[in-house]
């Protein structure tokens, strides 16, 4: 899966979780930009990504995430491993 495909899948997930049909997960997007992105929805987002990509994040990986770009980097790394 290439980066564009990952972003396309993420768009679906973001729109589902935040219930906003206009949201576009750009690399610089982060929780402070999205009012709905609270701690509960953050968990929902991570769980939805794990289910969609069939991956599992490590605790440390999630601790260091700052924006969507870093999230995509982690997803890419995990998909390439399998």
């Amino acid at each position, binding site marked *: 899966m290439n980066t564009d495909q990952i972003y396309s899948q993420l768009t679906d997930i973001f729109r589902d979780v935040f*219930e906003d049909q206009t949201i576009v997960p750009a690399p610089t997007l982060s929780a402070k930009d999205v009012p709905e992105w609270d701690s509960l929805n953050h*968990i*929902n987002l991570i*769980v*939805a990504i794990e*289910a*969609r990509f069939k991956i599992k*994040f*490590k605790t440390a990986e*999630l601790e260091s995430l700052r924006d969507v770009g870093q999230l995509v980097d982690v997803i890419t790394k995990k998909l390439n491993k399998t």
Partner: protein
Amino acid sequence: LSESSIHLAWLPPKADWAAALEGARKSAPEEALRAFLGLANCRLDFAQTTRLDRAVQQTPDAARKKVLSGRPLRLALLGSCTLTHLIPGIRVGGLRRGLWVEIYEAPYGMYRQELQDPSSGLHAFKPDVVLLSLDAQHLVGAADASVDEAFGTIKDCWSLAKQSLGCTILQQTVLPVFHPLLGNNEHRHIHSPATRVRVLNEQIRQAADAQGVEILALDAFACVDGIAEWHDEALWHRSKQEIHPRVSHVFGDQVGRLLAAIRGRSSKCLVLDLDNTLWGGVIGDDGMAGIALGQGNAVGEAHLAFQRYALELSRRGVILAVCSKNDEANALEPFERHPEMLLRKQDIACFVANWDDKATNLRRIAQRLNIGLDSLVFADDNPFERDLIRQELPEVGVPELPEDPAGYAACIAAAGYFESLAITTEDQERTSQYRANAEREQLRESVTDMAAYLGGLRMELRCAPFDEIGLPRIVQLINKTNQFNLTTRRYTQPEVSAVMADSRALHLQLRLLDRFGDNGIIALIIGRLNTQQELEIDTWLMSCRVLGRQVEAATLNVIGRRARQMGAKALLGSYIPSAKNAMVKEHYPKLGFTLLRTENEQTSWRLPLEGFEEAPVLMNIVEGIS
């Protein structure tokens, strides 16, 4: 659909779910809520459940009242870890069963303070039900934790909730999240956390029965999928969610079915198709020798195992019926002559085999058994028939049976249609009661003189105040009876106990016996003396099984007698119309009451006790219930 959606495997998948949700949101509120109800009954994952819940929460009160019968159920969540993510699943789990659930979540970890403090949000909320959801780490995770202490905490919560809230208590069992220290013989290490959880769960179950607390068996149902599916230690460290969000909708469905059972909304009757459901093959084509049924053939054994499950359900009170597209003689032949058949004709309360469409036949079955369509569950291997029923009769439960008959029983068990809080003696005898009813029908047909028929029944009506032993059945009847029910007021067990403790209340349970057997508790009365010394009849309900047998008049005789003993000068009755109780609209005038007033189709009636004479009835009235 994501993988976790396999959890609601008895619900049919819906391919265009998101589009359907969008469509529903755009329609008028009532229509939208009906559509949401349909969408709740599709196979959802946790994310879809959350989305559906958000949409449903926009429903205005007026539309909600129009579409969903019964008052909303107020549920308070009391816990020791994060529970917020469970709320959408619980609300959708209730909606799936036509129940509107309003939820109060106590502040994080504050369950004891909220219970103790009369000025807390919990007390202001006035819950119908509290769910105590305490996590394993909190209860027995600490190095020096003791089971006794944890159990003491739980029991304190029960008595606080009972005393100060008077509501129904749901206690979640503890999730076995701890790793073994010994292994297979872990039980020998009494201080291991894993052993503590096991012992604590045993104690909770034992005490719950005596305390009238209902159990949410998290330990049992989480084990069906595996603890790893339900609990993720990484997530626990991150967000203190003991129950994983990916199964929050499954958890919510379990809570939803318990809440429905508390409100008496569980299904009552399993309607079975025959060909390829109870046996393999088509009896009309393959004949007795050709169908697959019984030992020596894996498919035959699978169908037999399903019959065994159905039979066991019937022995604990679920009514069985048959609905088959067949010539009746062909359909009956295996029941009468096949040596491997477990189900016999006498196990089936209503047997319908013809060539009419199945929606018509299900209506027929509901009518003959005198139960609502929403009490039926329809098990059929044929996707066409299942779709037809979902379209035509959305209130009927239609499990999405797997293609392999080996999975039929698991599918129906997982769906929890017949969730039940207690098993009563009446439950165990229900099949014979329905059979006896059929025999009475036969006698009625052979006797034209009604008085001779009733006299020939040798009826005995036994009456007594409510008692502890009868309480489960009394609560069940109050919540289940729809048709012969003057006011359709629903009460929980604590509320009925409060009536029993009220010295100005009259409460009566009536049991009817006749030459064919014991009909069990068939009628209930709750009344209260007002300040003018008039007895207001709050609840008068009766099982439709005993219609047309003068039980109404005999019951009035008993009420009159008791009311006079309490010093009452008159009886007051009222009729509150519902979707289902039109049959009792003329109940009070038929018994000689006079109309006091009519308000919004609701009528009030009065019968002075001065000069009241008991009507002659063809049965003996006996004091004492057993």
